[in-house]
């Protein structure tokens, strides 16, 4: 699909997209309209981030088969993908998890020749850089674990090949969320989280692979530690970081640690916490309750994450065809627009743009002031006219990514020390 003039209302754009989808004009889903596809059910496991019922409903409408969603937390997704791979067909999983899961053989590589929009995918995933001269960032970058040489290879290619481990669907740049009404001063750096002024009012997330990166950003910002590669720390670096966290915990800096999206929303909305690690839609959820909450851009830059869809090894035949239909559909625009409207980013921008109004695209992706109310996918008012997205445009935000969620070589050691921090 080429660039479309987007001077359309959202409803109009959707209707247009719907019509286009129906006719097969957008991406041409022609291959599989056999009647028996209606009997196919794809069982997908993922996190609450993208395991959303409207997506399943739209799949049913557009593609005719059933998408059955199971939602759990990040660690549990990885765990089940590796140990109970046969209990579902599609894993909606983070790139740092796939680094552990792929070598177990649970996931089959995706043949990119069957993915129609593969060349339209944002270059972060296909070349490792947002623009040819932007830095790739530390940690487990999606590019480094995104491709394999052959269907049987256990290791990652580290370059673009015909076989993808995951089809990228959703990603974002994370930073700290704050309650501007309660922090009482401008927040500029990651180290502000450990400012004694916020004693007992700070929180970080308790998912080791992600929490350790936030901790590293804080330590580096406060001058406590310097890292060769934050995403692949040495044992002394891990010790330094965790010891510092334990010190802070003992001093009473943290109010709580959260593990799920909802917990972070509740901590912030109730005022228990005024500064904490947060995910973009959680900030939106706090704001939609009429409570001020800012997704504060920080001088040191963002920590990013990305996830994608993997096809489990056992999927074959008609079900495999359906899985490819589903992957193609994911990039074709509706899902992208749906996710962009919640503050995430979609893997193919052009098709998503065609499914969003000019106002929505301007607010979410270009950092422009909203020209009219910004509505959530459920139709709730999220922002009034004139509002500007925290952190600005897509390129401003994704361009300032300094590290990605990670799995380290010293993973077992890190997890053990992280547990000690939580138990300390």
């Amino acid at each position: 699909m080429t660039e479309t003039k987007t001077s359309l209302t959202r409803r109009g754009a959707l209707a247009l997209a719907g019509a286009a989808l129906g006719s097969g004009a957008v991406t041409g889903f022609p291959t599989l309209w056999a009647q028996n596809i209606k009997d196919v059910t794809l069982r997908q496991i993922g996190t609450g981030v993208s395991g959303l019922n409207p997506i399943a409903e739209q799949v049913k409408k557009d593609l005719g088969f059933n998408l059955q969603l199971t939602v759990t937390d990040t660690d549990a997704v990885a765990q089940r993908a590796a140990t109970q791979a046969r209990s579902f067909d599609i894993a909606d999983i983070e790139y740092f998890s796939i680094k552990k899961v792929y070598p177990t053989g649970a996931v089959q590589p995706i043949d990119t020749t069957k993915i129609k929009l593969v060349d339209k995918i944002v270059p972060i995933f296909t070349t490792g850089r947002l623009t040819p001269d932007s830095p790739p960032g530390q940690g487990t970058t999606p590019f480094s674990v995104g491709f394999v040489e052959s269907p049987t290879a256990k290791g990652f290619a580290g370059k673009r090949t015909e076989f993808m481990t995951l089809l990228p669907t959703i990603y974002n740049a994370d930073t700290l969320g704050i309650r501007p009404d309660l922090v009482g001063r401008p927040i500029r750096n990651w180290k502000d989280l450990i400012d004694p002024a916020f004693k007992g009012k700070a929180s970080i997330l308790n998912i080791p692979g992600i929490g350790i990166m936030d901790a590293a950003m804080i330590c580096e910002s406060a001058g406590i530690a310097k890292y060769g590669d934050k995403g692949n720390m040495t044992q002394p670096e891990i010790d330094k970081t965790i010891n510092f966290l334990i010190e802070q915990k003992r001093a009473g800096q943290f109010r709580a640690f959260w593990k799920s999206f909802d917990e972070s929303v509740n901590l912030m909305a109730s005022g228990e916490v005024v500064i904490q690690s947060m995910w973009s839609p959680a900030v939106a959820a706090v704001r939609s309750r009429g409570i001020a909450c800012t997704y504060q851009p920080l001088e040191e830059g963002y920590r990013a994450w990305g996830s994608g869809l993997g096809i489990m090894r056992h999927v074959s035949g008609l079900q495999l065809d359906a899985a490819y239909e589903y992957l193609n559909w994911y990039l074709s625009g509706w899902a992208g627009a749906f996710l962009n409207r919640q503050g995430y980013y979609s893997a193919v921008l052009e098709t998503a743009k065609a499914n969003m109004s000019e106002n929505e695209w301007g607010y979410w992706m270009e950092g422009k002031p909203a020209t009219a109310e910004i509505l959530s996918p459920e139709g709730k008012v999220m922002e009034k006219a004139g509002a500007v997205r925290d952190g600005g445009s897509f390129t401003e935000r994704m361009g300032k990514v300094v590290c990605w969620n990670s799995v380290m070589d010293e993973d077992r050691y890190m997890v053990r020390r992280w547990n000690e921090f939580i138990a300390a």
Partner: protein
Amino acid sequence: MPRLFPWLQTAPLLAVLLVFLVIPLAMLVIVSFYDYDSFSLIPAFVLTNYKEVFTSAVTWRTYLKTLWFAGLTWVVTLGLGFWLAYFLAFVVRSPTWRMVLFVLTTVPFWTSNLIRMIAWVPFLGRNGILNNGLMAVGAINAPLEFLLFSDFAVILAFVHLYTLFMVVPVFNTMMRIDRRLLEAARDAGAGFWQALWCVILPLCKPGIGIGSIFVVVLVMGDFATVRLMSGGQSASVGLMISNQIGLMQYPAAAANAVVLLAMVLLLVSAMLRAIDIRKEL
């Protein structure tokens, strides 16, 4: 044939216990000696998992903390449970009222464990009902922070959840006490406290024993209450095991489970030595 009969009669129970208790337990013990990496179990016989349990200061602290939670919860639930049961058994005269009040104590159990716990959060929070109320009447100037996400909150939730497990068996034994014994005690000149100490308490021992086993075992194995009410700030052995399972460190989790199991069995057998609960049955 007649000699085989008793064996046949016990066979179904034996089979169920074997399949659902003995075999899983044996697997747990076997896995606790396995090695592991990020995503796979490596069948082996290594002692690393136990070494990590016993040599880490944090693990020791976590075990002590769990015992501390169990001990404190036991003391509070025993105190509360005993007097509640006493009130029901000896103060309330009418059997109808006794039944009504007894049913009332079970009301909290009509909702799920999780909901009963989460309900405390808006009540105890920094801007919660309790803090706002206390500030409104001028009792405090700043919100009390220790109310939520603290050990206090954990103990409070435990007491809320488990007091009934103490009330029921104690009440049951109290109702079986022959009232003539109390009259005899009074006739012989015993005061309230003396009758309580010399007559009621000894006769309640089986009930107290059963209630104590319930409370201690439930607290020792808990992970959800500790995580939710402490906001992830505090740890218990159960929580440690649940974290390890979440991170796919099954052998480490199994080793902890074996140690915890041994500890709880020791505690329970100590309680059984102190109190003969068979009197109850």
